[in-house]
């Protein structure tokens, strides 16, 4: 029997090293003669740079160079627009160092390169900038009014993009509906907070003429290609490595100014140069996300069946649009969620403001979409006096309706087409896990009779995952029996080394420990785009599976030749390829690799290669000296994961504090490669979602100053704030890829704002509280209780 490895709870290969402090992060790497960089960042949200006097800073001890825009050679080009879109009619990207204007607090203005970071920061204080302050644009609702000051004067508008998507005939649906309910719903600004901020180390290696860069990026190949193009180098002359990276969550997929300036400094100064982002810089220098203001309405018939949804929203783009309008596009396409919405009108304006630019952060527009749709569903249930679960059941897309077209074009340019799922079963399973009906009919009434404010919430979501364009993988069986795997993805803690090894080990039937996965190094694999959008397991995982299957076929063919049997008579088990019924007739994978490559193996103990009479070239036509394959997988479109969550929450109406009693998740990401890894992803996402529901909010004041740019004031929930999370898996395989898998990276973060809103509202029914903004806070809850009561 083949050993089952795919789908097993295998401990993460990464953990012994990481948990004992033996990880190697960019800042752990030091090179002889290395210089350090500090950036002068704008203290103003919006200002013209009249002049910069860096002469005093340049004269300071230990300072090697102080650069402003005029000093940065090829980096004077505008930063690239990475993802254009036809509706992004007014794109705008920055200069790596401000040329004549700054558009948010934290924008890089000058760069000090010194013998130490301390001296570099001392020199920052000696740089004099002559600023002319301009009116800041912070409130995006004010920004779209005709008389509003402009973030970018030459664009003539603050609206970067205006998108309209229409499915069916929404106007007719609304005109004929039994009920129409409207909500104004807001999700506030937030940002990813990886434990490791960004860092870049670069050096020009004169011995082989290669620019080497260690970068915390989620896309090393993209960075390699950008640097090669910018500096006029061959791609092979740029070597980018993303070593251990302490979390990405979307914020590290970009081409940031620092990512071109630090390598340029290494080129220009011919010394290694390092920059490590500090936490303050991360708050004002790494992209944010989340703020959207929705005016949504839903039309239903008298039984609560959805006839149509209309949503118009403002999306805060921040100061620049280097990543296009991916986030609001995702919101627009995913808003209908798991429900049949036959008539749908969605419209957004992406609005510039003098704040940190916005690009995807775990969830990437989906928590907003889920919040809007689930709030509407709760509203329908409450208004029609229906059970909240029942309303959802009445509106689900049914299992026999897949593939299901939402009717809009998704972020990847392909149709928003759900490939598979079973939403009714998913919710049923959740209700069963929760013992929902007993909770509703017995336990909650009992607790409420004791004077406690206890509430129940549920929320459902879908997640488009595993988008293209493609990823590739290289798999090779070594003559030692080890298996080498390389992909173009980096990893930031998602356990790629474990799950990709499981895929290969399953195909070749070898111990998972013998599979070595190398990632994030452009010298090992040169094609691919990176890890983002919950796509690694789907896209790279499928490429790895295809490559492993090809290697398996090669092994079978070679063994069949050597044993003079039909490949169909061979089995692959226990790390060997052998003849069915006579297991002693066969080879280990090591022996097959040796047979494939007829060289000398000085130390090989079980040498399979025997001297043989001459019969022509050592490598006959069509044979390669290795069992190896490179394969690519390019998905036709996204594969759609889904989930349902439930919670019982208690609120102390006197203090506005809340406490989770229970939290359940039923999740369907297709075939599960490793349940522990999937659960880890869900737990992490839920924790981040709880942050988004009750803790994490970036506060800008009207001058565009970020008021809580530290972990004292930007509140990330700790282990103390995260309840036990009860996870159940459903497996509806994806028909789109060879493994049947779907992505899971962002799942947990999506439904939590909707869930907490529902549960809190339920707990506070005696006060008639209506939750329309996220995140909540004790202060906000008290305000709701007191104004509504």
């Amino acid at each position, binding site marked *: 029997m083949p050993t089952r490895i795919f789908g097993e709870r295998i401990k993460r290969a990464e953990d012994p090293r990481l948990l004992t402090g033996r990880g190697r992060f960019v800042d752990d790497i030091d090179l002889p003669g290395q210089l350090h960089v500090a950036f002068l960042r704008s203290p103003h949200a919006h200002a013209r740079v009249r002049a910069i006097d860096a002469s005093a800073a340049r004269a300071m001890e230990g300072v090697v160079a102080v650069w402003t825009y005029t000093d940065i050679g090829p980096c004077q080009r505008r930063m690239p627009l990475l993802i254009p879109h036809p509706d992004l009619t007014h794109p705008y990207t920055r200069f790596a160092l401000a040329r004549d204007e700054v558009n948010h607090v934290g924008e890089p203005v000058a760069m000090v390169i010194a013998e130490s*970071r*301390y001296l570099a*920061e*001392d020199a920052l204080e000696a740089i004099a900038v002559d600023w002319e302050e301009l009116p800041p644009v912070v409130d995006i609702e004010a920004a779209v009014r005709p008389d509003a000051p402009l973030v970018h004067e030459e664009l003539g508008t603050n609206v970067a993009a205006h998108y309209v998507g229409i499915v069916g005939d929404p106007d007719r649906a609304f005109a004929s509906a039994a009920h129409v309910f409207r909500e104004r719903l807001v999700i506030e600004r937030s940002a990813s907070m990886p434990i490791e901020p960004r860092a870049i180390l670069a050096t020009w290696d004169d011995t082989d003429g290669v620019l080497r860069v260690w970068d915390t990026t989620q896309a090393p190949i993209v960075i390699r290609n950008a640097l090669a193009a910018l500096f006029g180098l061959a791609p092979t002359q740029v070597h980018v490595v993303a070593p251990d990276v302490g979390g990405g969550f979307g914020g590290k997929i970009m081409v940031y100014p620092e990512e071109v300036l630090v390598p340029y400094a290494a080129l220009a100064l011919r010394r290694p140069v390092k920059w490590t982002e*500090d*936490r*303050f810089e991360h708050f004002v220098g790494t992209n944010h996300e989340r703020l959207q203001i929705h005016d949504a309405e839903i039309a239903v018939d008298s039984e609560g069946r959805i006839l149509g949804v209309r949503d118009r929203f403002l999306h805060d783009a921040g100061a620049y649009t280097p990543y296009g309008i991916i986030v609001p596009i995702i919101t627009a396409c995913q808003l209908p969620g798991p429900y049949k919405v036959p008539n749908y009108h969605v419209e957004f304006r992406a609005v510039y403001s003098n704040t940190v630019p916005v690009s995807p952060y775990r969830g990437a527009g989906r928590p907003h979409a889920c919040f809007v749709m689930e709030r509407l569903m709760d509203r329908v249930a409450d208004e029609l006096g229906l059970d909240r679960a029942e309303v959802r059941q009445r509106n689900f897309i049914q299992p026999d309706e897949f593939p299901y077209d939402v009717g809009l074009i998704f972020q990847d340019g392909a149709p928003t087409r759900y490939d598979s799922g079973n939403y009714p079963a998913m919710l049923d399973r959740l209700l069963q896990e929760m013992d929902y009906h007993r909770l509703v009919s017995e336990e909650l009434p009992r607790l409420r009779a004791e004077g406690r404010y206890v509430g129940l919430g549920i929320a459902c979501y879908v997640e488009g995952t595993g988008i293209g364009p493609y990823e590739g993988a290289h798999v090779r069986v070594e003559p030692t029996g080890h298996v080498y795997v390389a992909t173009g993805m980096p990893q930031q803690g998602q356990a790629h080394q474990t799950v990709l090894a499981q895929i290969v080990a399953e195909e070749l039937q070898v111990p998972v420990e013998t599979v070595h996965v190398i990632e994030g190094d452009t010298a090992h694999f040169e094609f691919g785009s990176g890890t983002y959008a919950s796509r690694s397991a789907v896209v790279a995982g499928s490429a790895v599976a295809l490559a492993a299957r090809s290697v398996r076929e090669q092994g079978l063919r070679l063994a069949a030749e050597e044993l003079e049997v039909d490949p169909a008579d061979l089995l692959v088990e226990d790390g060997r390829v052998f003849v069915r019924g006579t297991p002693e007739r066969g080879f280990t994978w090591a022996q097959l690799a040796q047979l494939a490559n007829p060289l000398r193996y000085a130390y090989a103990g079980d040498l399979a290669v025997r001297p043989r009479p001459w019969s022509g070239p050592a490598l006959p036509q069509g044979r390669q000296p290795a069992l190896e394959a490179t394969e690519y997988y390019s998905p036709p479109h996204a594969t759609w994961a889904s989930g349902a969550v439930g919670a019982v929450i208690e609120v102390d109406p*006197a*203090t*506005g*504090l809340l406490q989770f009693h229970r939290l359940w998740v039923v999740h369907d990401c297709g075939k599960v490669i490793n349940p522990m890894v999937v659960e880890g992803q869900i737990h992490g996402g839920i924790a981040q979602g709880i942050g988004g529901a009750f*803790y994490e909010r970036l*506060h800008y004041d009207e001058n565009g100053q970020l*008021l*809580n740019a530290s972990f*004292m*004031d930007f*509140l990330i*929930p*700790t282990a*103390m*704030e995260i309840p036990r999370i009860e996870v159940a898996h459903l497996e509806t395989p994806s028909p789109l890829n060879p493994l049947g898998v779907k992505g899971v990276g962002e799942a947990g973060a999506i439904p939590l704002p909707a869930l907490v809103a529902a549960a809190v509202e339920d707990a506070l029914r005696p006060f008639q509280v209506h939750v329309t903004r996220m995140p909540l*806070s*004790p*202060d906000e809850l*008290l*305000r709701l209780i007191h104004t509504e009561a």
Partner: protein
Amino acid sequence: MKPARFVYHAPTTLDATLQLLAELNVDAKLLAGGQSLIPMLNMRLVRPGHLIDLQHVSELAGIHERDGGVAIGAMTRQRQVERSPLVAERIPLLAEAIRHVGHLPIRTRGTIGGSIAHADPAAELPGVLLALDGTVRLASARGERTVAARDFFVDILTTAAEPDELVREVWFPSLPPRSGSAWLEVARRHGDYALVGVGAVVTLADDGQAVAAARLCFISVAGRPVQATQAEAALRGAPVTPATWREAGALVREELDPPADLHASAHYRRHVAGVLAERVLELAARRAQEGAGR
């Protein structure tokens, strides 16, 4: 986030420390645990010319019973206080409140004297010291003096200590008989600075049915820890009933004038101060009745 240049001193005796402090005066900062000072240095919010590290001045650490209370040397780590059986027995309010100070790693480095001298209006230890009517012993090359908590805390990060003085020791009196104490606070997350915190001491009359005296001190509602004197006055002689605690809570809302910040409005703080007052008094009175001492 690197500090500006400073000169580092690591004296090993109190005398040497006081001499340095006399010479350097306002140009020096004392490093007592670093849980507040190091971030402030790194953010260049403070930039002293000299940093005097107290960690090797062993005579500044220690927990001793003295004068009907417990004296704690300034360099005693918060974690030692948290684990001290003497503190648990004699100063239960301190033992209860100190668990709310940051997180374990913070308490392992943070010191009693450091927290008292830093005088953060949201910090627990100054609130406990005021609630118990304790004292602070200051030392300088000029000599020593003792200052009552109510006079020591002046305003945000400002105390009665002169630039050449250091906090040598903090003294917490034990509770009188028939007394109970309690600490409650509301924070955004476990270990955060409190949005509102309150310490109470309730002493019952001989019959146990009325309040003989009460102390009620709040943190995070003003520039320094605040005693709710009107509520305390109203509690004197009042019966041990829920209505008494409720009325005290109402008085607290009248007499406090808390500030607003990102995490809580003034209205929130005022409202929750009243809620916590009611709850903390009830708890302290129950402990007094049960003879738990706490």
